[in-house]
């Protein structure tokens, strides 16, 4: 299994396989972190919204409505949704350039995010940031950063602010397997461990840093061990299984919140699309992508549980999908017709 979890307690049944609804797998599931029916429904809705939003973004990019770079989160939805399900109000989130999913999971409005992608005045950054640069102080989302690895130091600084103020919040810092090789990541690990800052580092290992596979870029491919020399505990998690993500996230956040310092979670995940819209993805086979989609899709796993375990009717699931599409279509409508920023905006927001 390509994304097999390392630790016994996080070993998942093969997601999406025939066994997941059968009697044989029930025993394994009993030892595995479970979601309630409401949690599964919540996870399904949240992940589906991100999936549909990203599909629409890809479509609108193709129509020339979105310019420049556009990095889609399709395939990785369980990571941010699962972490958010385990987080508390006040916890900060910061990530790199593949940020649309994180913003939606933080509760930011699809209209505002999509209008930023199209460079319109109703976008979160009033059209001046773009796909990679959006923020919401209200939702505690601190970007949206285009320099690979920069968010790790910045996010450690958010944790520093919590420590400074004796605030029980935890900073959730997302970065990829590529960013994990940047020097400032380890500078930040050192200081976070030294000062026991409340930070959870989430390595979204989607196996490719743009076109370079983990094996071609990393001497240590077990990213949960990247903090060992700073005594930062870490674990590998099946990032395609939202139950594993949420449970690991809760452990990590509890550790950080209780004053024990930082924690590393390597989320083994996969992006279905190219690195950005202009990536032909020649560095991997179609079979590899297809296999992940068919056997490990994070949304299909929840869907199967909703049907088999929770006996949710197909019609209800269809209605959820229709609602997600409605929300996304409404956002697309807004983002297409909202005016571009006033030209006077060129000279605003440079200094306060």
């Amino acid at each position: 299994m390509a994304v097999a979890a390392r630790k016994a307690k996080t070993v998942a049944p093969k997601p999406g396989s025939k066994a997941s609804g059968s009697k044989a797998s029930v025993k394994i599931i009993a030892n595995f972190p479970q979601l309630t029916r409401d949690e599964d429904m919540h996870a399904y809705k949240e992940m589906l919204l991100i999936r549909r939003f990203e599909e629409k973004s890809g479509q609108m990019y193709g129509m020339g409505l979105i310019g420049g770079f556009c990095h889609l989160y399709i395939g990785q939805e369980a990571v941010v949704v699962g972490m958010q399900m385990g987080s508390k109000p006040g916890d900060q989130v910061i990530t790199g350039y593949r940020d649309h999913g994180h913003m939606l999971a933080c509760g930011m409005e699809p209209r505002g995010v999509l209008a930023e992608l199209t460079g319109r005045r109703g976008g979160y950054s009033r059209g001046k940031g773009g796909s990679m640069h959006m923020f919401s102080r209200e939702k505690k989302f601190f970007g949206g950063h285009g320099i690979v690895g920069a968010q790790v130091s910045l996010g450690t600084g958010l944790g520093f602010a919590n420590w400074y103020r004796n605030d029980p919040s935890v900073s959730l810092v997302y970065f990829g397997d590529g960013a994990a090789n940047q020097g400032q990541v380890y500078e930040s690990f050192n200081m976070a461990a030294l000062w026991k800052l409340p930070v959870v580092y989430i390595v979204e290992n989607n196996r490719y840093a743009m076109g370079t596979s983990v094996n071609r870029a990393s001497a240590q491919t077990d990213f949960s061990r990247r903090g060992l020399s700073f005594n930062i505990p870490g674990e590998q998690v099946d990032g395609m299984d939202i139950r594993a993500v949420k449970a690991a996230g809760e452990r990590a956040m509890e550790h950080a919140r209780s004053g024990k310092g930082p924690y590393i979670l390597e989320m083994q995940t996969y992006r279905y699309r190219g690195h950005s819209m202009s990536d032909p993805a020649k560095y991997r086979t179609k079979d590899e992508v297809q296999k992940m989609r068919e056997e490990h899709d994070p949304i299909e796993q929840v869907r199967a549980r909703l049907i088999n375990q929770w006996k949710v009717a197909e019609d209800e699931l269809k209605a959820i999908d229709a609602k997600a599409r409605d929300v996304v279509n409404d956002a697309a409508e807004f983002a297409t017709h909202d005016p571009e920023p006033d030209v006077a905006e060129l000279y605003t927001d440079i200094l306060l």
Partner: protein
Amino acid sequence: MPIDILMPALSPTMEQGKLAKWLKKVGDKIKPGDILAEIETDKATMEVEAVDEGVLASILIEGGTDNVAVNTPIAVIAGEGEDAGTAAAAPAAAAASVAAAAPAAVAAPAVVTAPAAPPAAANAYDASSEVPAGTAMVPTTVREALRDAMAEEMRADGNVFIMGEEVAEYQGAYKVTQGLLQQFGPKRVVDTPITEHGFAGIAVGAAYEGLRPIVEFMTFNFAMQAIDHIINSAAKTLYMSGGQLGCPIVFRGPNGAAARVGAQHSHDYAAWYSNVPGLKVVMPFTAADAKGLLKSAIRDPNPVVFLENEILYGQTFPVPQMDNWLVPIGKARIHRPGKDVTLVSFGIGMTYCIKAAAELEKDGIDCEIIDLRTIRPMDIDTVVASVMKTGRCVAVEEGFPQSGVTAEIATRVMGRAFDYLDAPVIRITGKDVPMPYAANLEKLALPNVGEVIAAVKAVTYR
């Protein structure tokens, strides 16, 4: 409703491409994620994925067609339960409206002319009014003035803290933070490991959250390790966030040449930081300005790069004894009024101007010396007003000549006061070489008083 598939743009620069081949045929069931076709762009062969579910009702552009413009309808998908036959008849009109709407909206900014930045009148700033009459002046070193500024602001605002290498236990590599640890404790005076990139990023993150960090770099040469966070993370975020996320932070430390420390410890970065919108850049000369400007910098809601000088740390100047001594950022100070020539400088560059003016006075040349104090935003009004009076300008800095701060001054003076100039502006700068170690060569590499005197004589035709 039938759904049109349009020729997609698959890169930021793609305008047209070749529809290489279809991987689905009319009548095939389609679900999201299915690969429909292959398209050759200007860069690579890409796959077109289906977004919607349905049946491929018709193919409008055959495989192998070259130069298909982006947004041209290439196929039609019929929705669930729709008749593929009737769906195929509808697409053209619907597709055309989408195609027409999208590029028009995207193309709009190309024809818009950028509005010019508002012009400003040439009104000289009167710094002499900053200190109320009768204020006691206390002799203070620049080092003490900087320390006092930080201590006062830390007392006034619990969000202000200082972090850097050796700022706490060691009392500061140059003793600028002397006594602060004892006064404010280790949470507000934070010793960092030697890790500029990391701690600069941490400080910027803390500033995003609303703290007001003062980051001390042991010297600005080492800030090169951290310059990504100063520029990409601190300076640009307010703009990129549409005004939501400011970054109230001060980056400070000694900048430029000290004495005999070689090329890697002698670089003047004034011109580098002054190039970046979103930063304020301050470079004081006197202790009074150092104190008043640092207090203003700490209170400023924007990122401020505060460039000090090791040689000036020990120099003593009168500092006004006031509870709330603030010097505004972005305002120059006329250090010495005069009528024959305008000397403009900042930081340690002022020392050459002051000595030259004293010498030139003996020859009957009356120099006006302007201390810029802030490099960005630059108070060019005060300079221009002076040049309109004197008709001559010499600008002095220790930094390298190409793209230097004095080049900016000369350009702006030419633009604003061309008709008033009786001679070209002359720039005196450091030489265009990495700083040498040998005493004689180092002396040659820096500006000197003789060069300033010669420049003044040249512009006054003496």
